[in-house]
């Protein structure tokens, strides 16, 4: 990357460290932090939307819809979430290929599930076998995002469902007494007020989501854990930068990254809670009112 780094074997000391840390592989490693942040940036709103849908469905007055919502909410309880992560990635992949197969190759006669194999026609492979590696990467990332959104959506639904129930019932009855329709009560009274009740739970969920991102590694995405293992492993003299087993230091680095990230989030959530508590009929809101007076 830099001229001074042309011959890594000849340099030493600080220059060596600088060249080592700016090698092409390391630059990939730094980019993979962005993968993690991108996952968070996409998953958080998606999970929130799924959670909102799930909670709304669970509150529905139509029995099948409410039942479906409740099953979704209870789904991740009692079962380790990592089971869902491992399950959904294969299940989603097979569901997508099966659907494509039905559309692309309607004349295919052989059974898809034969013995121990899952075989769709070559045109229905997602992504196609001849696609460039980047497409495979993006598809893997996409599957991971959907899986995270489904699993965390269930947890968000749980929090939002609780928050909706926490809004004082008298508020809703008053709105109905004013002649608002169900949808109006939901939109004008319930939703604006539930956030302050949902925030502690959602804040907690955000922290959990941050701490769940290393699972990307299990889903086969080249994330920070993947690169930490790759770069840290001992390198013999055939490599440009030979060194011993440094994985411990790389994982220490990841640990510091996560600690800093969760700490900053904690501070941010604390500030947001303060702001949202203004003027609310809660203990925190009361404390703010007293402090100002």
């Amino acid at each position, binding site marked *: 990357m830099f001229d001074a780094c042309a011959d890594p074997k000849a340099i030493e000391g600080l220059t060596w460290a600088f060249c080592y840390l700016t090698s092409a592989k390391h630059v990939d490693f730094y980019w993979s932090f962005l993968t993690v942040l991108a996952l968070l940036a996409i998953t958080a709103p998606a999970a929130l939307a799924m959670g909102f849908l799930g909670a709304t469905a669970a509150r529905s007055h139509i029995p099948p819809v409410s039942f479906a919502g409740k099953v979704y909410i209870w789904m991740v309880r*009692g079962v380790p979430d990592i*089971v869902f992560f491992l*399950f959904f990635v294969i299940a989603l992949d097979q569901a997508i290929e099966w659907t494509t197969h039905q559309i692309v190759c309607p004349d295919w006669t052989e059974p898809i599930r034969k013995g*121990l194999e899952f075989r769709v026609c070559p045109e229905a492979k997602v992504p196609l076998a001849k696609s460039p590696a980047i497409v495979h990467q993006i598809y893997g990332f996409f599957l991971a995002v959907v899986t995270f959104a489904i699993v965390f959506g269930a947890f968000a639904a749980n929090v939002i469902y609780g928050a909706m129930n926490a809004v004082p019932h008298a508020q809703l009855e008053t709105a109905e007494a004013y002649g608002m329709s169900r949808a109006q009560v939901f939109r004008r009274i319930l939703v604006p007020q539930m956030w302050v009740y949902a925030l502690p739970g959602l804040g907690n969920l955000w922290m*959990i989501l941050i701490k*769940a991102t290393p699972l990307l590694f299990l889903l086969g995405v080249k994330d920070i854990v993947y690169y930490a293992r790759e770069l840290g492993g001992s390198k013999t003299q055939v490599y440009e930068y030979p060194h011993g087993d440094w994985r411990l230091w790389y*994982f220490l680095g990841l*640990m510091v990254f996560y600690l800093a990230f969760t700490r900053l989030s904690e501070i941010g959530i604390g500030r947001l809670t303060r702001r949202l508590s203004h003027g609310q009929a809660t203990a925190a809101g009361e404390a703010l009112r007293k402090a100002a007076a």
Partner: protein
Amino acid sequence: MTMTCWETVQGYALRSIGIGEPLLPKSDFTLCQQFTLIGSGLIWNLYFGILALTFGFFLANAIALARTARSPWVRKPAEWFVFVFRGSPLFIQFFLAYEALVLLPKEFTLFGAEISTSWTTRAWAGALLVLFLNTAAYSAEIFFGALKSIPKGDLEAAEAYGLTGWKKFIRIEWPTMLRLGWPAYTNEAIFLFHATTLVYFSGFPAFQQKGDALYYANFFADKTFNPFIPYPIVAFYFILLTLLVTTLYGLVNRRLNRHLPSNQRQKIRLRPNLVR
């Protein structure tokens, strides 16, 4: 050669701890095999969960107390311990611990005795250590919160009766702390059992294919390309385990609340905490 289901159970029910058939099934992958082997793996989940919770309970109490200490020399290390273990992913903690244990000198002499350290890199010891410290940190936070929310009146009443220091703690503060913290602690126990499924997917390798329930489920899903059977089996086992934990901790909860009128008792509610 096909085995009857009973033969399968005999061959594989204790496979996860190395008793029975040396090789995992290569063909068929019957429902019976999947139920037996995944159930066999559950032994490890129980082992990790029960031991980590038992040891962790004591450390958690000590750390929760240390966090209330006035001296910063006692308080600060406790705060940092909780921060490090609650602020970072368990997944990374497993990796870090494994790499650190691998770097330990293989053998060293202490007071003339040869001590070998290679066993610490095995999951049964290394992963147990991580889970123990991890649950201690999460539980300490729960107990610390409970200690802080003991009603002021209770403490004043204790002092009025002449209880001070250790006596006040052991008779009033500690039981009340347990009672207030128990619902949250029940959730911690459930999610610790869930967390045990991470062991064989992080730094710690499964030795001679002896793994936990999820390890075998993953094995079957890889072999059969069919995730729709092994993973629901794991889910089934874990729902049973969750019910069992809830029942046992519910009994303790009843005992802790037995002096209270029924409308003031703390109820245990499941709160999700998933990955750590």
